[in-house]
């Protein structure tokens, strides 16, 4: 039996704040700075020290007494979830003791600080290997005690299960049930997973389940309306079999990846939909644009990935358009179609944006380097790519529901998270999610050596130098992790290493099955691992025996990413928890980042300067990269902002059409 309150909470969510403008935005901005002020960290440290001071008291308690005391605190949290005088300090000290006894790990001071920060609704920036899983566990206990649904969102299914199992004894001891939801589960298991006090899951699963629940409810999503209907005419409302308990607290691991990098990637529930016209049209469009020559018939806008048709191109399309279905014959539509075909041809490259598996186009996520099965590009574009690859053009899918992470995570009443790299995007976290960022210091000082960038004028030189460098390091026995940006790049490097006769593990979208395992072993003596940037995130690379004496793991970045955070994450793979380690980056003036985000004139100048061997050209190149990165980040930020505004506008404009997630 579900109580009316529980029923209400199932679809209750926070009314997300509308994007502000003008003076309001300024004030909000200033408030953001205030919440991130330095004093907060000092406060947290003082509190953590106070908790540390309580240690002796809790250490002395016998097991069953400790458990009783925990149950008492549990009741306080359950009865007054929002009260300001909850015994948080006692609670954390008790949970710490419990963790020590039942998980075998005693949370460090920094972990207590992280837990406190997250409990206060902060995004805690904690370096890799600082024990984020346990930190999240401490916070989750506090949140789980309130009885409201608490979700811990991690990077992949493997971590979901591992973390849930690992902390289960702690939760059980604290009087909480833990569940998890992963990819291949059936609805019954899912429901069981969500029913637990604390649920581990991935972003993909939770968004999909939420969408499916909403679809099932149809017009009865609004809790008030549903509640009134149940009171008035319960028989009228067929009780839908929902999976989730609702959205209240979310603790997000690797928050920047989800909330920023993948923020606008929507999760879509869709069904294929017959559309012969579109299939036909895209196939023909591919043929129509065949003779068009870049620079002559159209221009490329690399930075925004757009095609601009020129007059001669228009003329050619006009001459050849008579075969198109009538829907696409009008000027606007035939050019849209042609532009799409050209976009598919010029900007969507095999091995970079997608790969072919079993005669199907499979999208590769540019940030994570992971395959995105199930996903398709927007109607028309996906077909255009299929036409380009001479595959059978499939029907476009018809969307039934879609939700981007950006919109989804704004719905939680209590949002907190942790990540290794957040400071760069602190502003965006605040603006979009009202999530202030705080940097928690490391437990032990970091001893990573970062070497200056190696700059080359051409890509070929760069790759040759990387291969040489790998050989050189390999001979010393130090393990190497080489980060690449795309599948194609990783394949190219693999080819080079093969020619040098080296053994290595390749981790990319095409070889992703034992991801976590491969990454976990990357710290062994003499290992070479090539991985796309974010592969195996969330898994620690522990150093093998004797590696620390050799200097620890060495990381080579083969290209700069569009976001500085991603670069930092890759470097952060080495020298974790006070281990030794080093990192360096190899960049060339032909890298995509420069091509897209540096004005052509500047880039040419730089190339000239570099070729003529000016003394400071290396430094100039690094500056140019930083600049390009800044521009890329800003552009991406603006794009996300405009998507959010567009979503909000749509929400208003279509609110008659059965609201999705507005109040």
């Amino acid at each position, binding site marked *: 039996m579900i109580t009316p309150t529980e029923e209400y909470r199932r679809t209750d969510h926070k009314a997300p704040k509308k994007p502000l403008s003008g003076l309001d935005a300024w004030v909000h901005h200033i408030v953001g700075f205030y919440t991130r002020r330095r004093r907060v960290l000092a406060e947290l440290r003082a509190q953590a020290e106070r908790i540390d001071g309580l240690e002796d008291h809790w250490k002395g308690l016998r097991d069953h007494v400790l458990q009783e005391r925990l149950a008492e605190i549990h009741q306080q949290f359950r009865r007054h979830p929002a009260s300001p005088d909850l015994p948080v300090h006692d609670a954390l000290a008790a949970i710490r003791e419990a963790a020590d006894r039942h998980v075998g790990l005693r949370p460090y001071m920094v972990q207590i600080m992280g837990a406190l920060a997250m409990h206060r609704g902060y995004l805690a920036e904690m370096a890799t290997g600082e024990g984020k899983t346990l930190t999240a566990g401490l916070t989750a206990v506090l949140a789980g005690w309130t009885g409201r649904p608490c979700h811990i969102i991690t990077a992949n299914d493997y971590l979901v299960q591992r973390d849930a199992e690992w902390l289960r004894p702690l939760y059980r001891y604290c009087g909480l049930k833990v569940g998890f939801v992963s990819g291949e589960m059936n609805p019954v298991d899912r429901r069981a997973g969500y029913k637990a006090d604390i649920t581990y899951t991935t972003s993909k699963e939770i968004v999909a389940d939420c969408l499916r629940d909403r679809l099932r409810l149809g*017009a009865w999503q609004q809790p008030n309306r549903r509640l009134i209907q149940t009171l008035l005419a319960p028989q009228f409302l067929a009780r839908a079999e929902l999976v989730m308990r609702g959205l209240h607290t979310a603790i997000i691991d690797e928050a920047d990846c989800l909330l920023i990098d993948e923020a606008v990637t929507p999760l879509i529930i869709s069904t294929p939909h017959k559309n012969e016209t579109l299939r036909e049209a895209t196939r023909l469009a591919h043929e129509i644009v065949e003779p068009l020559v870049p620079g002559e018939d159209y221009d490329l806008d690399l930075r925004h990935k757009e095609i601009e048709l020129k007059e001669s191109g228009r003329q050619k399309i006009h001459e050849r358009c008579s075969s198109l*279905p009538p829907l696409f014959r009008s000027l606007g*539509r035939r050019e849209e179609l042609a532009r799409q075909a050209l976009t598919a041809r010029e900007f969507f490259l095999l091995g970079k944006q997608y790969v072919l598996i079993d005669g199907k186009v499979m999208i590769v996520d540019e940030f994570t380097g992971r395959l995105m099965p199930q996903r398709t590009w927007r109607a*028309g574009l996906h077909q255009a790519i299929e036409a380009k690859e001479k595959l059978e053009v499939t029907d476009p899918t018809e969307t039934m529901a879609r939700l981007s992470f950006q919109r989804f995570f704004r719905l939680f009443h209590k949002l907190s998270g942790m990540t290794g790299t957040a400071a760069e995007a602190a502003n965006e976290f605040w603006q979009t999610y009202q999530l202030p960022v705080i940097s928690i210091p490391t437990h032990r000082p970091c001893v990573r050596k970062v070497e200056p960038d190696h700059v080359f004028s051409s890509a070929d030189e760069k790759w040759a130098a990387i291969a040489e460098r790998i050989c050189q390091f390999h001979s010393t026995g130090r393990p190497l992790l080489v980060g690449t940006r795309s599948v194609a790049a990783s394949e190219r490097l693999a080819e080079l290493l093969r020619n040098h006769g080296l053994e290595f593990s390749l981790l990319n979208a095409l070889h992703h099955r034992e991801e976590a395992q491969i990454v976990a072993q990357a710290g062994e003596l003499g290992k070479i691992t090539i991985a796309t940037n974010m592969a195996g995130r969330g898994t620690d690379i522990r150093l093998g025996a004797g590696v620390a004496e050799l200097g620890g793991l060495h990381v080579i970045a083969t290209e700069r990413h569009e976001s500085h955070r991603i670069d930092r994450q890759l470097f952060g793979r080495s020298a974790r928890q006070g281990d030794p380690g080093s990192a360096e980056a190899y960049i060339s003036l032909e890298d995509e980042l420069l091509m897209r985000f540096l004005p052509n004139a500047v880039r040419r100048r730089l190339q000239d300067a570099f070729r003529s061997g000016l003394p400071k050209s290396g430094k100039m190149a690094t500056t140019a990269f930083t600049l390009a990165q800044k521009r890329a980040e800003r552009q991406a930020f603006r794009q996300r902002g405009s998507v959010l505004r567009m979503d909000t506008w749509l929400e208003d*404009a279509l609110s008659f059409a059965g609201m999705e997630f*507005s*109040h």
Partner: protein
Amino acid sequence: MAEAPPTFSESWYRIADQIIYLRPGVRVRRQHFRGERWHVLEDPFNNQFFRLQPPAYAFVARLRPNRTVQQVWAECLEKDPEQAPGQEEVLRLISQLYFANLLQYDQPTDSGQLFERYQRRRERETRARWLNIMFMRIPVLDPDAMLGKVLPLLRVIFHWVMGLVWLVVVGMAVKVAIENFDLLREQSQAVLAPNNLFLLYAGLILIKTLHEFGHAAACKRYGGEVHVMGIMLLIFTPMPYVDATSSWGFRYRWQRILVGAAGMIVEVFFAAIATFIWANTAPGTLHNLAYNMIFVASISTILFNANPLLRYDGYYILSDLLGIPNLYQRASQQLKFAMERYLFGLKKVDSPARGRREAAWLTTYGLLSFVYRFVVFGGILLFVADRFLLLGIIMAAICAISWVLVPIGRFIYYLATSPQLERQRPRAIAVSASVIVGLFVFFEFVPFPHHFRAPGLLEAKEKSEVVNETAGTMATLLAKPGKWVTAGQPLAQFQNHELDLQIEASQARMHETEAMWRRAMQTNVANIKPVLQRLDSDREQLKLFQDEQKTLTVRAPQDGVWAAPELKEFVGRWLPRGSSLGLVINPKSFYFTATIAQTEVNRLFASEIRGADVRLRGQAGEELPVGELEIIPAGLKTLPSAALGWHAGGEVPVSPTDPQGRQAIEPFFEVKAALKQVAGVSFVHGRSGKIRFDLAPEPLFQQWYRRLRQMLQKRYQI
């Protein structure tokens, strides 16, 4: 060229299965604008309008309670695949209709969102009210029912026969007005006099109320609805207004134009009737009220109502005549487009104009109204600041914020954040900055010819005032005034009987003394000496009187023209000694005496005068070259002629207590400029005019800044 919105939309699923259709009350009318067909949706509840082009209308018209959006769209595609709107277009269309409250739908709406929207609208309205405080509107009553009752009458009134009547009445009134034009003009000088202000305002209210009823009646007559009538505070002056927006939905253009013009038509008609009243009544309240109504109807109609640059009747009439609805907004959009396209180099922007001619109209209108707004807003600001000092400062601050700072802030925000500018932002910023720098350099460093004008009058170089040296009664005029006289020529003969008697008495006394002298010679020699002394004095006395008698004939002191305009009236009158009879003026050489206010003196004395010329009143076309300038560096207070003072219609403020009107309030300085004779210009002593000094060129900012400082100093003693 901008791209069409994508054919397929990722949000299509949100509306695909919805059942949406136009609300039952919504009216649809067909209108033609510049030869294109449009469909206008009208919401009768709130007078909101929505224009649709035929392909969009084809979609909207198919929406039914038994079909989903998806089905309707499919049907449109089938019927007219080339023209049918794409998914994205449909989505936008439906959302716009939804915002305009024109849709009905099956789903229960998100009521919270509706309330929020309502609240936002209220907030926006309140803000708009405060920002437009100079044009605040307060709705008062709903005249629709009343108008409905008199509808049959309205049908009679708006009939072509009445048009003829109107023409006849107005024609006759114009005739009367022309016949009495002098009177009309004369009376106009007193219109702004304090004692007339109340009547003026009464006339204004009366005629404007009739005006507004004209709109309302015309609108009702042709099938519109008029639900709001109220008071608009136009610069804090209550004025009536009416909301006749429902006429926008009229199918025929002439009807819309007629509604727009009805106010002025009625106003002119009543002004015509007022003309008859005015012409046939003696001065009194009714007469004056009628006059004020004529004044208001003619002046305000030309300045405000018929002026398309202000958003009154003329604007709507022009907008309908051109067939461009929302002329003002679209003209601004056109200017923005021109800026983005040609200055910032954006490629993906669309002109709001459909066709070249419309673009030309929009651009012209946009530029003109932009300039005009500057002028009007500036004028209003000065006016308010002038009238109410404290309030004026507050108002000026509010207006400066809403008319200057907010637009500038918006522009900067737009430059910094507009997503459209994404690709061209550096260029946009560079262009804007260089325009600003260019303007600054232009105004700050480029010197501009620079003059200033001062009032003054012609004075003959050689002139003598003729006075009677002896008191007396003027007997005859010996020379006709206006004639050339030579020095010494008698001009007038005075008589002084007393003097005659005195001479006679004096002669008699002399005779007596002579007799005494003779007797003394005979009788008493010792007496001779004193008697001789007495004789001498008697002679002197007589001589004195006789000399005095000679001066009773007033003679010309010099050659010249004898100018004595009022002399004839003096004949037979006793004039005390030293009365001014007239002037003898040598008309060969003149100079121009200019009076220069002390605020301007520094400019004149400090900077180099490059030249000067004089224009005489009534002959402003003739520039009289000026020879040498003689500056008299001492402050004066008495004007050379009362003609320059306020009392006599001049420019120089004079003391109100001075009956002659020659005492200036502020000291002034005199400059004498020698003039040469010019053929065709009659140089007459005392003719007033203006002198213009050409000063060394100076940048405009400096000129303006000085003027502003002077104005502030003068008005607020700052």
